């Protein structure tokens, strides 16, 4: 029986990065992927932030199949047929500003997997790992169909469902209040149309984050420009769907029916419909990261971050893979892959900006639970602004007076104060 130093389950950003780094360090590495090719089972609902990635995969920006550099970010509040937006643009590349990119996983993931292969990792595709091979409470390999494969350490990079750990009783439960469902359409449009409509150049693009117009379901929408397609979707809390008896594609239809979204997607053909679960991030929800003979990287460990302005998953996956690879190399030197040696991985993550960002923005998560954010404020904000932009035959009051009228019967003073406090604790102070 062939034996490997490391077996990695899943050839997504986490798995392939780990495979690349460990093969480069001279270890024998096997990556097992259940898709016929890497990326085939994977869906992105975010953009790829390059700062952490660039440290680990230098020059990836020149080589990887990226769609567009995101130079324009828009945060939009939607109500019935109105919208209010905050637009941020930086069209000049500078040394201190790391670009972010739209990516399509069916292109990006095979590229990263091929980098791991070039470094010497062995990649097998079309093989589902059925279970972890355990002995005396220690992970000693994997079981895939009739085959058992042994390794010093197994890296679990199987993504958001994290079935292997669940089945082995090695992770806590995932609750419907902590997990959202993203549903997405890929909409095809000619490159020139995208560039005119989104006011971008042939290499740059726009990322929209939109709040409201989701049938009262907690969550939000996104639109990303790819090279000749758009990624358009909603991310909605699973618990909120069944408690409101609302189906996910109904929320997507409602979102797409807003005039602003309609205008941006006009004339485009839908070429793919996809779905993926998205964990609410944060260290209080972080899954177990390591144990005897295994480490967990990427979304399988719920390594995600959301502060409304940035939704990060892929760069955390790549950064966690690098930290775990370092821990494995240090464990190899000590000649033991027990929980004690692999705990170096968690220490490295704790020292990284990932933990600090979670800590800084930990109160943003309770903000995302606030139903008034989705149900009341979009109307109040858009109607208040309308009174300023659209004078009527009646005298126009000042902003506070209009706001007071709008808030009346919708949000109590006490709730408003509580919400302002929550928003300020979320990401201002």
């Amino acid at each position, binding site marked *: 029986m062939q034996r490997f130093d490391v077996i990695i389950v899943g050839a997504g950003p986490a798995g392939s990065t780990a495979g690349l780094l460990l093969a480069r360090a001279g270890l024998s590495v096997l990556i097992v992927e259940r*898709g016929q090719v890497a990326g085939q089972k*994977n869906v992105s609902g975010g953009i790829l932030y390059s700062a952490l990635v660039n440290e680990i995969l230098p020059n990836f920006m020149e080589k990887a199949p990226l769609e567009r550099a995101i130079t324009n970010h828009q945060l939009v509040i939607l109500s019935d047929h109105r919208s209010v937006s905050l637009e941020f643009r930086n069209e000049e590349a500078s040394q201190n500003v790391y670009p972010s990119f739209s990516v399509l996983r069916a292109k990006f993931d095979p590229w990263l997997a091929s980098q791991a292969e070039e470094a010497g990792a062995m990649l097998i595709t079309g*093989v589902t790992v059925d279970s972890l091979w355990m002995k005396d409470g220690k992970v000693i390999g994997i079981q895939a169909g009739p085959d058992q494969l042994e390794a010093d350490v197994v890296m679990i990079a199987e993504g958001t469902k994290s079935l292997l750990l669940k089945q082995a009783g090695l992770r806590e439960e995932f609750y419907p209040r902590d*997990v959202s469902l993203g549903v997405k359409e890929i909409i095809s449009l000619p490159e020139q149309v995208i560039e005119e409509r989104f006011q971008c150049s042939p290499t740059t693009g726009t990322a929209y984050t939109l709040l409201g117009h989701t049938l009262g379901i907690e969550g939000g929408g996104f639109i990303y420009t790819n090279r000749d*397609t758009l990624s358009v979707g909603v991310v909605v809390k699973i618990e909120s*769907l069944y408690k409101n008896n609302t*189906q996910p594609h109904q929320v997507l239809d409602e979102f797409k029916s807003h005039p602003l979204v309609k205008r941006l*997607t006009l004339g485009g053909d839908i070429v793919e419909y996809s*779905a993926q*679960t998205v964990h609410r991030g944060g260290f209080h929800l972080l899954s177990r990261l390591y144990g005897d003979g295994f480490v967990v990287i990427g979304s399988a460990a719920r390594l995600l971050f959301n502060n409304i302005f940035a939704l990060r998953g892929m760069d955390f996956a790549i950064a966690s893979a690098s930290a775990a690879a370092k821990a494995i190399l240090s464990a190899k030197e000590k000649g033991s892959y027990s929980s004690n040696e692999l705990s170096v991985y968690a220490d490295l993550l704790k020292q990284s900006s990932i933990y600090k960002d979670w800590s800084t923005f930990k109160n943003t998560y309770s903000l995302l639970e606030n139903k008034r954010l989705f149900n009341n404020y979009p109307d109040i904000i858009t109607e208040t602004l309308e009174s300023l932009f659209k004078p009527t035959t009646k005298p126009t009051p000042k902003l506070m007076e209009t706001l007071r009228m709008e808030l009346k019967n919708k949000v109590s003073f006490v709730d408003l104060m509580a919400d302002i406090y929550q928003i300020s604790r979320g990401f201002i102070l």
Partner: protein
Amino acid sequence: MTQVILNLDARLGLDKYTIDEENSHIFVNQERCDQCNTKPCLTVCPAGVYQLIETRIVVRYENCLECGTCQIACDHGGNKGITWTNPQGGFGIQFRYG
């Protein structure tokens, strides 16, 4: 120029699958489902895989997008009647864009 809107089945018709004709990767325990009042699977699945036909849960596993939502909703909002596993290697959804 108009905006294209498709119903759920037309959306699923755009996707590429290699269907395992012999084995479903989703198992339901009908007894548990009979006793489940909420049946969140009927609502949360983005592919409408779960259908209530008369009193039974029928599983159109061939449409599954492999997102994992049903398992989480069923375990904690339903009656733990669903066991979702990965399809056998090479089978199931094949995203061409992702």
